[in-house]
């Protein structure tokens, strides 16, 4: 413990060196900008700016890139809230409630909640990282395919309750997402499957962002056009000190979801297979399941913004853990960071903590400081971000449309995906008109491939014996939790039916 504190103090001192401090602020700002552009995520940001870091010492370099990574996690929330387009895959869950809040003229509240939740998530995560990095790395090693599958099951379970009372429609939506996730190559045998109309383009599958931007960007745009009949909408909010203070005071409403998101996010982030996107979706689902007022989720509940934002920031710190201790990246962005570390002459792996303590502790120290930097920058910039909403909707709609098309094309570089995105957008709009929840489909397309791979790996290794999932303690625990979670909304509903009059319909 004492050695940890001494090392940490050294790390913090390093983080406060002028160059490093500058790197933190520069990184956070760059991350914010990259994150809020749809189609440009932290992956692209880190890849594009990696060369800049060769001009400075390795510690300053990783500090810059790590700060950029956090900044981007928050930046994603900005376009999710203000425009309803997920800026990055990690910010999809933030759209669910962030966008309705913005439409109700509460964009500043949503942005504030996102900033504070991100800060708490990041801080909790880095404290856990500091104290328990080595034992957590050992724990992550215990996660084989069986445990991964059980965890995915748990993630799906958190979403069964997401569709409100209509469980059959939720299951339909999940299945729709799973079918889309299965398009492309079979992940075990490598055979092409579900290639519709024999179009080779389908071999590359349907990307997650294609679906998310379609459903939330285009679908949302159509929905708003219909509901307002093209009437000019104004959401202009004047930011005053009083309003800021009031927004800050709202923290009580979402603090519980933030804690849940922080711990869950860190934990899921440390597992090499998962990453920040599943973490934020799971956190949203859990927070809704255990909310006193689950019906208000998806309609502008502030906890629905805080939960995923806390989780994605916590997960981005968490995913540094397998990178540093095992040399295995927990997310696509850390994969690029890993490349950077090799160039700087560092060999990430079990020995890094002993062989390059200055580097590791400098990085850890900078994470604390970077969290402060991001939250300050974000809160300071809220008045700028919400100016976007002051635009008349007739002007905003074409901009959203262009950003959606651009965002998808920038990610995959294919017109085919852009068309698919538009088709899915219209499809998503129709589903919404028919009262189908679309969020579960988004969850399924993210988790589907992870779940499929781990299920098949488990069954191959047990030679087809399904009891392999219940004979392993961690896997069994997750499965029991999943069953409990799945039945929780049902039990809740029965309780409510018993007490309340059946007059809801």
């Amino acid at each position: 413990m004492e050695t940890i504190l001494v090392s940490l103090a050294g790390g913090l001192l390093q983080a406060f060196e002028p160059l490093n401090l500058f790197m933190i602020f520069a990184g956070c700002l760059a991350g914010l900008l990259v994150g809020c552009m749809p189609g440009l995520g932290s992956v692209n940001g880190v890849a594009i700016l990696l060369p800049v870091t060769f001009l400075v010492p390795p510690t300053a370099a990783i500090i810059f890139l790590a700060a950029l990574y956090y900044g981007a996690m928050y930046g994603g929330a900005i376009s999710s809230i203000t425009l309803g387009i997920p800026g990055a895959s990690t910010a999809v869950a933030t759209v669910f409630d962030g966008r309705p809040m913005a439409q109700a003229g509460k964009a500043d509240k949503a942005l504030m909640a996102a900033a504070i939740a991100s800060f708490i998530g990041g801080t909790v995560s880095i404290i856990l990282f500091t104290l328990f990095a080595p034992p957590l790395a050992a724990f992550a090693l215990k996660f084989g395919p069986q445990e991964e599958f059980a965890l995915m099951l748990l993630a799906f379970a958190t979403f069964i309750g997401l569709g409100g009372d209509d469980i059959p429609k939720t299951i339909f939506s999940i299945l729709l997402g799973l079918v889309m996730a299965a398009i492309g190559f079979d992940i075990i045998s490598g055979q092409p499957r579900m290639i519709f109309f024999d179009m080779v383009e389908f071999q590359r599958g349907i990307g997650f962002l294609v679906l998310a931007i379609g459903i939330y960007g285009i679908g949302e745009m159509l929905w708003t056009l219909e509901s307002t009949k093209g009437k000019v909408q104004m959401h202009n909010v004047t930011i005053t000190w009083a309003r800021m203070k009031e927004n800050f005071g709202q923290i009580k409403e979402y603090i519980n979801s933030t804690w849940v998101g922080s711990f869950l996010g860190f934990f899921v982030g440390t597992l090499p297979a998962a990453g920040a996107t599943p973490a934020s979706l799971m956190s949203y689902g859990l927070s809704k399941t255990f909310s006193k007022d689950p019906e208000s989720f998806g309609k502008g509940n502030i906890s629905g913004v805080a939960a995923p934002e806390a989780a994605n920031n916590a997960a981005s710190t968490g995913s540094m853990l397998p990178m540093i201790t095992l040399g295995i990246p927990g997310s696509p962005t850390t994969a690029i960071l890993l490349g950077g570390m090799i160039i700087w002459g560092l060999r990430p792996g079990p020995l890094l903590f002993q062989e390059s303590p200055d580097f590791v502790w400098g990085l850890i120290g900078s994470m604390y400081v970077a969290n402060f930097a991001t939250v300050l920058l974000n809160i300071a910039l809220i008045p700028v971000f919400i100016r976007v909403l002051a635009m008349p909707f007739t002007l905003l709609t074409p901009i959203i449309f262009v950003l959606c098309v651009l965002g998808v094309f920038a990610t995959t570089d294919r017109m085919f995906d852009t068309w698919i995105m538009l088709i899915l957008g219209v499809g998503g709009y129709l589903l919404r008109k028919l009262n189908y929840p679309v969020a579960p489909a988004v969850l399924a397309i993210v988790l589907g491939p992870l779940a499929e791979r781990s299920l098949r790996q488990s069954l191959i290794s047990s030679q087809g014996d399904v009891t392999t999932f219940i004979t392993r303690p961690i896997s069994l625990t997750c499965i029991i939790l999943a069953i409990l979670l799945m039945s929780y909304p049902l039990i809740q509903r029965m309780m409510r039916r018993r007490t309340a009059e059946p007059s809801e319909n």
Partner: protein
Amino acid sequence: MSILKTLTFSAAALAVTAPAALAEWQPRKPVEFIIMAGTGGGADQIARLLQGLIEKKDLSPRPFIPINKPGGSGAEALRYLQDKAGDDHTVMMTLNSFYTTPIIQSELGVDVTEFTPIGLMAMDTFLLWVNTDRDDITDLDSYVETVKAAGLDWKVGGTGSGQEDSVLTAMMEAAFEYEVTYIPFPGGGTVAKNLVGNQIDSTVNNPSEQMEFFRAGNSKPLVQFTGERMEAFPDVPTAKELGVDIEYYMQRSVNGPPGMSAEAVEWYTNLFSELFNSQEWQDFCTSDGLTCDNFLNGGDLGEFHATQVVAHQNLIEQVGAAAITGE
């Protein structure tokens, strides 16, 4: 709209920061550096090292963006490159699944000899690894004995059916007359992690994938499938020394899509040859057990590919495609 404007400008500013080197043809936009395998594996590490060196030495006016396309044992990447025919801004880091995947999945419609050869960066090697916890396994004999006793309960991790390690696993099954359960993972890094976590029993990882765990004492090599002992592993016997005729290498070459323009090929060839001769690359080769003596390019590399395709066809015929795909 000031935010968006700033963003557009800053994005544009980023794109033009690198100073242009003098050459007739040079990239006009970021180059997609496709990796036909998952993150953390040998190909991935190499591609990311090369990308970093390109940036560090300022060898390209536009950045190289590494993109992993591990789906279907590299089928996804091969198909992608095929569809990019005629494109001058996409190159791919390949491994032996470059040969095996199109053979096993004939319906993929990819002929790798049509791709544009750019440069052979290294020949990678294979070792047989087990967790250090396995006190009962000290050498190849005790390994074979243990595997035979375990039968299908013995789990070998790999990077996908049809990938080079599954070919090597099938070769070992044929040579030692045992049968194991082969579990595919999305990349060599994940395989290494699962070996250290005891989720699998053995693997034939490349040295770079196990090096850090080996140095930390988490995993141990039993045998190397090379002609001679490598500098990095002086105490590990080769299979040939032990009387087992298995010698298998992995090519690490960079290739472009079919129909790349001659000017672009020249530019990329110069770029990768410069990287090949750099001190950093040669050091990496030594520390990670790669053989980097000759830089093959152009027609020589094309011929090399053609020979390798035939060799792998024979190999797959010998052990049977079913042994590799596990069907």
